[in-house]
């Protein structure tokens, strides 16, 4: 009985999909988004992308804030998926992964799009930001400033990196930065440390103080809340730090050199646009790097005039080099 029911549900979902694909312009696209982070950083970017798609394409939006109730995450996914009502369901937040994968098994025809990471399930779509490309740009910028002995960057020929834990995804940031420094700034090296935790900003601050004390003038952090401590240390020490994921220039204005942005708004908008224009979202990872506009290095306004013009010109060359594939950012080399 139950199996029959599921077949029925699957059948109707399939029918809905075929219908949707058949006359995409006539039917309004229905999009849901589930996360616990809609009012901060990355979540705001996702909301912006969704809102823009709503205005431009008239899609129907359903926002589900998971709140803090870990027990019913799965139920929340199932509630969205069981009607087969929504064409696309965007999901953000690592704490939701288990529930998401269970719901994905129960409702294999519901198209889930997980933002910022790749999971095991082959039937889901993944927005995968190419963080190593952005980190390459960070390496190029900080390295060139150190090599040129620009004002405020002349203490040593080292630039710093602070990671949360020594895990593969954080290594991607470091490898990108190291390659950027090695290829774009001769004689400069990266001094890297890991805090061993993502939620100890005091430790982040102490690590940053240590690096600054050793003559490092600028630190790139990929360490979540621990990294917030790094940004505060930059202010206390009168040195520079580089923000990550979202625009962190405002945290310590004047001491944040740049922010490596993952443009979730660009990715979300782009996927919905494709769906509307007859290029449906398919399972598997979709990479958003520099070329697609998903990764961007934003130089903070407060410090923009301290960066020499030739460094800016060179950085733009590097950026377009990555975008058109002349510069290949490799991992595990």
């Amino acid at each position, binding site marked *: 009985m139950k199996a029959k029911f599921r077949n029925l549900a699957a059948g109707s979902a399939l029918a809905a999909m075929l219908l949707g694909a058949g006359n995409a312009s006539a039917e309004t696209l229905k999009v849901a988004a589930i996360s*616990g982070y809609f009012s901060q950083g990355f979540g705001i970017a996702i909301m912006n992308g969704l809102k823009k798609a709503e205005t431009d394409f008239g899609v129907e939006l359903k926002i589900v804030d998971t709140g*803090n109730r870990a027990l019913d995450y799965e139920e929340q996914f199932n509630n969205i998926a069981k009607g087969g009502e929504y064409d696309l369901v965007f999901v953000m937040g690592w704490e939701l992964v288990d529930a998401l994968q269970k719901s994905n098994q129960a409702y294999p025809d519901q198209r889930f799009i997980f933002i910022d990471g790749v999971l095991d399930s082959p039937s889901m779509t993944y927005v995968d930001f190419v963080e190593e490309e952005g980190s390459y740009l960070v390496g190029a910028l900080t390295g060139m400033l150190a090599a040129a002995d620009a004002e405020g960057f002349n203490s040593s020929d080292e630039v710093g990196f602070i990671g949360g*834990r*020594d895990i593969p995804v954080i290594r991607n940031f470091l490898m990108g930065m190291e390659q950027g420094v090695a290829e774009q700034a001769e004689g400069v090296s990266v001094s890297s*440390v890991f805090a061993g935790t993502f939620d100890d900003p005091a430790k982040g601050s*102490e690590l940053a103080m240590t690096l600054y004390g050793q003559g490092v003038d600028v630190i790139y952090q990929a360490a979540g809340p*621990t990294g917030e*401590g790094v940004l505060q240390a930059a202010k206390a020490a009168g040195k520079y730090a580089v923000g990550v994921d979202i625009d962190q220039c405002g945290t310590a204005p004047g001491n944040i050199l740049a922010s490596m942005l993952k443009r979730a708004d660009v990715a979300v908008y782009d996927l919905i646009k494709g769906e509307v224009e007859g290029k449906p979202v398919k399972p598997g990872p979709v990479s958003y790097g520099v070329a697609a506009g998903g990764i961007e290095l934003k130089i903070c306004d407060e410090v923009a005039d301290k960066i020499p013009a030739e460094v800016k010109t060179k950085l733009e060359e590097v950026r377009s080099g990555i975008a058109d594939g002349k510069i290949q950012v490799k991992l595990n080399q």
Partner: protein
Amino acid sequence: MEVLERIFNIALIAATLRTTAPILLVSLGGTFTTKAGIFNIGLEGQMLLGAFFAVLGSIWTQSALGGVLIGVTASVVVAGIFSLFVVTLRANEVVVGLALNLLAGGLTITLTKAIFGTRGSIVSGDIVGMPRIELPVIHDLGPLGQMLSGFTPLVYLSFAMVFVVWLILYRTRIGLHIRVTGEKPAAAEALGISTAAMQHIASLFCGVLAGLAGAHLSLGYITMFAENMSSGRGFMAVAVLIFSNGDPVRVLFGCLLFGFADALSLRLQTFGLSSYLVLTVPYLVTLAALFALTYRQRPKLFRETAETLSLIRRRQA
């Protein structure tokens, strides 16, 4: 040689004082409960709540002092709940302590979400942090003087508190009564000392210092709140307390050693050693040293720990 200079420079002293201060404050709080015969595993949670409410208070009152007071108040309330359960209602202190730690972790996440609508951390320009204080005379004593100056107020207070706590415990009537309560409850009752009252008082003193430690973390060390930002410092304090038997001077020694090893390990990482290995160093060093220091007293310590864990029934009149 150059390598050694990069590790052992004068900045290491400042880093040691910074990393020591929060653990020292919370450990000193724990000396009161340890001396009063309560095994207080709830330090971590009290510290975390202190940190959270200090940030909240700082935003509400727009002053760092207001933040500290509200942070300490929150921590004292939790300490009161702890002693209410443990002393008055005779619940198991480990269970209550753990429960309060879990409550603190969940409550701060929920309140962050409810009040600020965010998860993970509270970073805002509205949080008023504590100012750095340049000590007038010491600051002019060359580079070493400059390293000993320019901290936020609670760093100085944490080291001053070692003496204050020692004074309270060993030179005041209430300190004597607290110690008697912990060492010989039967004798205390015979002398007409209310052991229950002493344990309540010790727990509240502990709450004050744990709250200060939390407020230092979120308004002094840095100016923000992050989920679980106490990051095991309260548990480290419990370890220091077990081995030091709550003696303020030994507590200072243990915490300084931990702070030094911690600051040192951060430096070792820049030479390419694996972060996983290096990050264990401070814990290993501290445990090894405290163990060696108290080797001779072990039988007594084990007995007392077993007693406080209620593995052996505590004899009470």
